[in-house]
């Protein structure tokens, strides 16, 4: 293997590309994930592949790792055109990938994980020799890793080292790291960057897939930005500015610098329906995901929450929807203190919640459309009496949902899971809105994964609610969408609300900088 192609240390890349991807196209049903992408990796460089979620960067790397086959395009590894049919093909060519979610067997030891189905293993492997080999590699990178430890007992940082060891023992010298810092503490992150530097010094090539600008700036030699399946920028990191990268990432070119016009205010403007004060919420990892957040949504107003994903947005709306108990702070809905109230009580007080990933959290795919409608209404008369469901009434309202919200289906008896993403989202919205009139709608990523037309329909529904005097709180990863919909934009960074920008003052550049650096800029209120 080419493991020991020692290059001169330091960031200067040699001009011979180790990997060349040319004109890569990958389509999934409804989306073009990679649209004629060119990507080059040199020996001894750390190459940051930057972009928002869904920009296509993981798809591109999965193609290079043999998980997906591209619909078009050429891949050359060390100058030779290759066809990668599986990760095993990639590994043979020295390409290895560490996924965001670790692919490890928790019940097994480090050495067992690393050498699973390793080619040079005899029938009765000499485990002690393998253990000392691991120790040697680990100490080379300054890791303290016990090869006999059970992987389930390791910290995320150590698990990542095990993943790297799996690749290193197989001679990989092109390492693709997918969001490697997302599960690491700041100290572990620093350690990982040191390791990456060292590996680059040994001539290995590293692709850092990330959506964090600061990481790309601090550790990479070269940076490539993807947006909506295309490469929008690629240059040496030292020639790039953080403003330029953030603009490229969030796609300001679509809107340009036009400031959106003020809209006529909605009927009940100025009366708050939701008041959140000093709210702190615990995340899944046991650290605070939301810190002292303040937020108000008035009637007839759309408030958009902008932020790079993972900055506390989802935890914030889950707390508002009663799905997560707040640690501190207060939530007031229409004048009633609802901190820690159950989702059912919130619903009865006028809150409607549209969960993210409708197909997963919003419907039961195995049940029919009308049964999914029944899930929402069956508790109330006239849809049920004494606990017995009146299916005729349910079917009537289901028919209304399907026709008013244009759910494209031949029959309400069809399985809800057979609907497309856009139809599922309209079914959920229709189900929630046909039978009750909320005063506050909280929608988490309502257009994520939908095609352009379906997204537009969802946005139209939200705008209509606004004009009817409903307060709308909406999460989106699409900055253009946030700008189009919102009267005010709340920017979150590191779990904090770092600024609130009025529609008239908001520009993509301003939001991009706030989102990526967490600084409140002037013009915030």
């Amino acid at each position, binding site marked *: 293997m080419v493991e020991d192609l020692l290059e001169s240390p330091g960031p200067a890349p040699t001009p011979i590309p180790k990997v060349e991807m040319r004109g890569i196209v990958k389509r999934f049903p409804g989306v073009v994930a990679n649209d004629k992408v060119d990507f080059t990796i040199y020996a001894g460089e750390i190459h940051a592949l930057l972009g928002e979620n869904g920009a296509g960067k993981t798809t591109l790397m999965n193609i290079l790792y043999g998980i997906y086959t591209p619909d078009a395009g050429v891949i050359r590894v060390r100058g030779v055109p290759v066809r990668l049919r599986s990760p095993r093909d990639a590994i043979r060519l020295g390409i290895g990938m560490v996924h965001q979610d670790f692919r490890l067997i928790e*019940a097994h030891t480090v050495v067992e994980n690393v050498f699973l189905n390793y080619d040079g293993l005899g029938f009765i492997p000499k485990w002690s020799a393998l253990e000392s080999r691991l120790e040697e590699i680990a100490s080379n990178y300054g890791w303290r890793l016990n090869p006999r430890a059970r992987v389930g007992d390791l910290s995320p940082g150590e698990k990542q080292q095990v993943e790297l060891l799996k690749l290193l023992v197989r001679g990989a010298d092109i390492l693709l790291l997918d969001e490697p810092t997302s599960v690491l503490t700041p100290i572990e992150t620093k350690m990982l960057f040191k390791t990456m530097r060292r590996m680059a010094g040994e001539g290995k090539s590293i692709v850092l897939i990330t959506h964090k600008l600061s990481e790309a700036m601090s550790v990479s030699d070269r940076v490539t930005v993807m947006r909506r399946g295309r490469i929008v920028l690629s240059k040496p990191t030292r020639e790039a500015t953080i403003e330029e990268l953030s603009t490229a990432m969030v796609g300001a070119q679509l809107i340009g610098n036009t400031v959106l016009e003020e809209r006529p205010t909605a009927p009940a403007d100025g009366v708050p329906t939701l008041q959140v004060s000093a709210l702190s919420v615990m995340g899944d990892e046991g650290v605070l995901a939301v810190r002292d957040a303040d937020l108000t949504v008035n009637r007839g107003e759309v408030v958009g929450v902008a932020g790079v994903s993972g900055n506390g947005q989802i935890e914030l709306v889950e707390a508002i929807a009663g799905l997560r108990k707040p640690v501190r702070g207060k939530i007031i809905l229409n004048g009633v203190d609802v901190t820690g109230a159950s989702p059912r009580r919130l619903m009865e007080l006028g809150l409607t919640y549209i969960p993210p990933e409708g197909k997963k959290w919003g419907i039961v795919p195995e049940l029919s459309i009308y049964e999914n409608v029944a899930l929402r209404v069956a508790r109330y008369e006239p849809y049920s009496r004494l606990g017995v469901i009146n299916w005729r009434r349910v079917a009537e309202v289901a028919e209304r949902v399907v026709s008013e919200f244009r759910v494209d289906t031949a029959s309400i008896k069809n399985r809800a899971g057979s609907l497309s993403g856009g139809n599922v989202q309209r079914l959920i919205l229709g189900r929630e809105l046909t039978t009750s009139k909320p005063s506050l709608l909280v929608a988490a990523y309502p257009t994520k994964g939908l095609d352009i037309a379906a997204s537009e329909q969802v946005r139209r529904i939200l705008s209509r609610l606004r004009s009817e005097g409903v307060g709308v709180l909406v999460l989106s990863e699409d900055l253009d969408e946030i700008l189009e919909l919102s009267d005010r934009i709340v920017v979150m960074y590191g779990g904090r609300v770092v600024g609130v920008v009025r529609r008239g003052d908001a520009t993509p550049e301003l939001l991009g900088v706030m989102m990526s650096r967490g600084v409140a800029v002037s013009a915030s209120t």
Partner: protein
Amino acid sequence: MTLESLSFIEAILASAVSAGTIYLIASVGECVTERSGVINLGIEGIMAMGAITSFIITLAYGHLAAILAAALVGAVFGLLHAFLSVSLRLNQIVVGLAITWLGLGLSAFMGAPEVARELLKALNPAVPEYLAELKQAPRLPEVRVEFLAGVPILGRALFSQNALVYAGLASALLLWFILFRTRWGLSLRSVGENPALADTAGVNVFAVRYLAVIVGSALAGVAGAYLFIGYQPFWVENLTRSRGFIALSLVILSSWSPLRAIAASFLFGGVESLQFRIPLRGFGAETPQLIMMLPYIITIVTLVLISLASRGRIPAPAALGKPYSREE
């Protein structure tokens, strides 16, 4: 300690080992199967098939052929289980129970005097047919390890047994070594923990699971053969009496390790043989049903204790019972 109580203890230990070997062979095989992520609830029925096979083949061709035939019959049932549960990805619980009822029913049919007689005649016409109707076969001979069998207390239990007892112990040691010390074992355990990962690492998940189910079932067949020719060489319907299910729970008790299965099996063999000895001492003579429940009660109690001790997190193979299919 009096000589009498010493010999009582020796007798208990000896019968603990000879009764425990039924569980040992079956549960060691099931350890292997479950480590690959497949649960085989059919071993009760496969044991019954092994027992009836050993009865008829012993009469026709002798002990060695009987043991091999029982293993073969077990393997065939294992192949069926693997086809249904691994290839067709049917629910493993349903498949296993179906195989249990199939094995129990088929073995009862084969054991009926007129059927057994015809089978014997077809296999070896030289053997007098009436032997099948006697429902008996010659027991496996004891193989005494002379210089060790005389050791007090443990000598008789461990060194004055038939060949299948030694083979059972050897298979436990061998399979433990294969599972935890060899490349195959690592692949097999990985398939049981995370088949998708093993698949991407190049392990043939389907082949591994087929093999693990077939090996485990062959051993269940041998356990049935031992139950008959090694332990109780008189054919009755329902000879296995749920021993297959006890073997299944012993797999949990031994936390999927063939080594610990030795201790667990002999412990339960002891419980089982006690149930025959306690009435002799007066207790429960009137109500043998109560004593007969003992092994099952102890099974439930130990499982509860294990669950409590591991705080509800029994370290089962993570993919146990889950069919695997490639996503794309």
